[in-house]
Each structure stands twice: as structure tokens, then as C-alpha cells.
């Protein structure tokens, strides 16, 4: 059975006890993303801190409906990006996208385990194309919200 390789303990833990869940104030941008196939949704807020130089991810808060993979992924994602400078957090996001593509593009560079930390637990998901969208939902929402928050900066 490969179920265990997909549903690693880390994933089930995050699913049962999601971190950073619930919408919080203040925030710089809020987005709402949907997975059209199953109706999974996430509302996600990003608060950035202006540090003079590069902005830092101060908070990510979210409300979501969805499967274990999408819930756990949102939880792991917020753990990983909160506190990081935006560009560094984006690097983690890119690494996660590569991880999800690793089955479809086996020749690409292997994902960086040091960068991904707990998110490496999602490696098993990449083998199930139908579930990759679940794992990516929160990450895509976070990228989108962060881009909007950054645009807001320059207004």
C-alpha cells in the first residue's frame, strides 16, 4: 500500500492540528482561491512588515475548506514562510512547486530538502496528479496575496 507514503504522519498531524489557521487582522492583502474540481477553497491573508529593506512575512492567516492534503499544506506553508523575508519565502514556494512537478519532470534538479523542511513530506503527493492541485492551493493563494500586498506598497 502506498497510502502511507502519501499520508505521512507529518501531514496527518498538520491536518488534525493546523497551524496559524483562522483569519487575523491586520493584513495587507486577502485572496480567495478555489479548486474547481472539488470545490475546495481557501481565503488567505498576508501581512508584511516593512523592515526598511526587503519586506518580511509578518503573518499568514487563512480559513479553508478542503481535504487533508490541502489543509496540511496550508499549515506547513504558513509555518515555513512566516518570519522569512519575502524573497526567501518565495524560494521555498518555488521549491515546493518543483517538488510537486518532480514526478512529471524527473530530469529536473531534485528539490532542496533543506529549504523545504516539513514540506518534504508532500513528496508522495507528486505521484498523484489529481492531488497536486490540493497541495498547491494554499501556496498559490499565498503567492498571489503576497504579490498584491507588494503592489499595494508601491501605490
Amino acid at each position, binding site marked *: *500500500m*502506498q*497510502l502511507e507514503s*502519501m*499520508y505521512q504522519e507529518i501531514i*496527518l498531524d498538520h491536518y488534525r492540528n493546523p497551524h496559524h489557521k483562522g483569519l487575523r487582522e491586520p493584513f495587507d492583502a486577502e485572496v480567495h482561491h478555489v479548486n474547481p*474540481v*472539488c*470545490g*475546495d477553497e481557501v481565503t488567505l491573508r498576508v501581512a508584511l512588515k516593512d523592515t526598511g529593506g526587503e519586506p518580511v512575512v509578518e503573518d499568514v492567516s487563512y480559513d479553508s*475548506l*478542503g*481535504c*487533508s*492534503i490541502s489543509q496540511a499544506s496550508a499549515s506547513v506553508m504558513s509555518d515555513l514562510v512566516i518570519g522569512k523575508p519575502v524573497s526567501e519565502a518565495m524560494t521555498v514556494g518555488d521549491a515546493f512547486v518543483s517538488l510537486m512537478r518532480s514526478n512529471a519532470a524527473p530530469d529536473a534538479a531534485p528539490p532542496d530538502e533543506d529549504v523545504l523542511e516539513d514540506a518534504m513530506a508532500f513528496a508522495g503527493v507528486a505521484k*498523484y496528479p489529481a*492531488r497536486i492541485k*490540493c497541495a498547491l492551493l494554499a501556496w498559490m493563494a499565498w503567492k498571489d496575496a503576497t504579490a498584491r500586498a507588494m503592489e499595494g506598497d508601491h501605490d
Partner: protein
Amino acid sequence: MTTTAHLNSASLDVDAIRADFPILSRAVRNGRPLAYLDSGATSQKPRQVLDAEREFYERHNSAAHRGTHLLGEEATEVYEGARERIAAFLGATPGEIVFTKNATEAINLVAYAMTGSVGPGDEILITEMEHHANLVPWQQLCQRTGATLRWFKVTPDGRLDTDPSPITERTKLVALTHQSNVTGVIPPVAEIARLAHEAGAVVLADGAQSVPHQPVDVATLGADFLAFSGHKMLGPYGIGVLYGKRALLESLPPFLTGGSMIEVVRMEETTFLPPPQRFEPGVPPVAQAAGLAAAAGYLSGLGMANVAAHEESLTAHALDALREIPGVRILGPDTTSGRGGSVAFEVHGIHPHDVGQVLDELGVAARTGHHCAWPLHRALGVQASTRATFYVYNTHAEVDALADAVRYAKKFFGV
């Protein structure tokens, strides 16, 4: 293993049927045998259908209605022969059968062709249990024309809420499913058609889930239009049917335009052929028509009443087996009365995607999500569901495999 009292559906020789479907003996994940419970999405195809397509391609292939040569003649015969076969299958006449690519195109055809016939103040009436294919085209028609979209709601157990009837003298068209692809509910189409006709409205029935699974006779059905897809009734992809009452088809302007549906073409102006040709531009998909005719022949050979009886027996078994699992909630009616072989359910505490993943791992191919019926899920208070659908080749053992897999999912996720 669940054992129930429903194992005696003698109506079909399922072993013999299964031998006609090579894919059913395939192994899937972990070398497990396949339990294909997703025929509501698309059915498997027996070799009789695949052979009919291949035989056409290898012996007679040519453009129907175009060639003056022998192959063209043969292709025309196969194509028009398929039309006759489908007409007979439905109790219609060949001139009332339009071949489309699928149910979706058939419904869009009517929705587009009606663009000139409705306007502000007119109402299009649908239901909350429609598949998106019988919902979005009507939203779009209303957007194009200024007509208003109204709908029958569903009751908490998933039946059509017909009281009070939202049909008024403003209703121009009622479009409703003849069998829900989620709950299996069979709404009272004939009764609604009667009321709609009294109000001067025309009625379109979405037969995508009924024509493959129960005897359908257009006279009894009472609808003016009936749309369905070949690929859900043992036929190939790439062909669907719009049945329309002759006088109504004649009153509709063309939708897709191009070759073979014209009478005279000038740069300035074109006149059109009568139905069904008016609605069939382009080189016809004769191979698929041959396949669809073979599928209808296969089903007629089994007898549609037997098909329905077999599915009812599987449905009863599934309802019983699932009902006894704690935390499982059936969407819609949990008896077999007034419903067909689609069983959608939720498992308390496990998202349908996760249920589906466990099922898949155990070889049970069911579907998860909103099944293109998002408003119905909203009305029933769920975001998504897991759905098992049955057909002529399914067995009671497969129903047991489904129930076993649901139990395993509960254990796996500890709920």
C-alpha cells in the same frame, strides 16, 4: 465483507457481460482488480461497439452524404441506419434525431437556437439539481437575451420541490434532468411537462443519466427535447443525441453552420436544409454513429428493463451496505424508490478526496468532488461528495468492495 439480501439480481448474466469488456479484467493500483464504479462519468465500451467502429473504418470509411462513390454510399447507409436505430431505441422518428458531439452540445444547441425566441420578461426554468451542462447554457441564454432564470429547489432529501410550482405564463422553457447524476433522483418529468405545456412552455429533459439506465420512450416522457451522450451508454466518445419533436426542430434556426446543412449558399445569403441536417454541419462522425448504434443494439439485447432492474438491485445493496457504516450520510433518498443507480455520500470527518484516495488504493474507482452539480451540493449542505455509479457490468462483490473500502478509510484516518 458485507452480505445483504440483494445478491439475487437474475435479470442480467453479468459474467457473460463482463467478458465483453476487456478493461474490466485489468489490474490497477497494487495489482488489485478494478471495481469500476464511475460509469456515471463515462461507461466502459464492449468489444461489439469497438468492433463496429473499427469495421466501419477498415471497410467503409468515407464522408457520408457527400460522395457519389460506393464508399460514400455505404457510409451514408451506416450513418442513417444509426439514426434509425437510435430513433427506434427512443420511440422517435429518424427525422427527430440530431447527432451532436455530446449531451453538452445538444443542450447548447437548443439554448443558442432559442436566442431569438426569448427576451426580457420571459423566464427559463431549471432546477437546483442540474448538472452544469444543463445549467450554465441557460444562464448564458438569459444573459444574452435579458430573460430571467428561475429554478425548482430541492427538498432536504434531494427530491424536486414541486410545490408550489414555479411554472407561470412567463415560463418559456423548462429544462430539467431526467435523472440526477449525484443522488440518482428521477424527477416527475411527465407531470412537469404537462404543466409546462399548459403554460405554453417547451420542455427539455437532460437524459444523460436516464437514457443509458432505464427504458426511455419519448412519447411517455412528454418532453419536447431530450439530450444525451453516447459515451455514457456503452458507446464511443464524440457522439451525442438531441431528440426534438419534429415541429419544434423545424421552427429552430441553425446553430453551428457550415457544410452539408445548407440549401443554397451565396456570399450575400444562405438558406438551410430541414432538420436534422440543418443542425449537423460538417463531415458526419459515422464511425461513432456506428458505435452508438451498436451500443443501443447491445442494450436492447439485454433489455432496458433488465438493465434498470440490475442497477436497482446494486443500488439497494449499496444503500444498505453504506447506511450501516457509522458516519456515512447518503445524499438524497436512501431507498431505491424514484431513483436510479447513483449513490453519493459523505463520510463524517473525511474529505471526499481522501475517501477517494483510499478507494483508489484498493482498486475501487469512484468519483469525488461536486460531480458538476455544485448548486445541488450547496443545497444539500455539503461541499463535495464521493459517488459510486453502476452499470450492466457491475457486481454485488464490487458493492461490497466499496463498503469495505469506506470502512478501511475510516480506520486509516482514525474517525
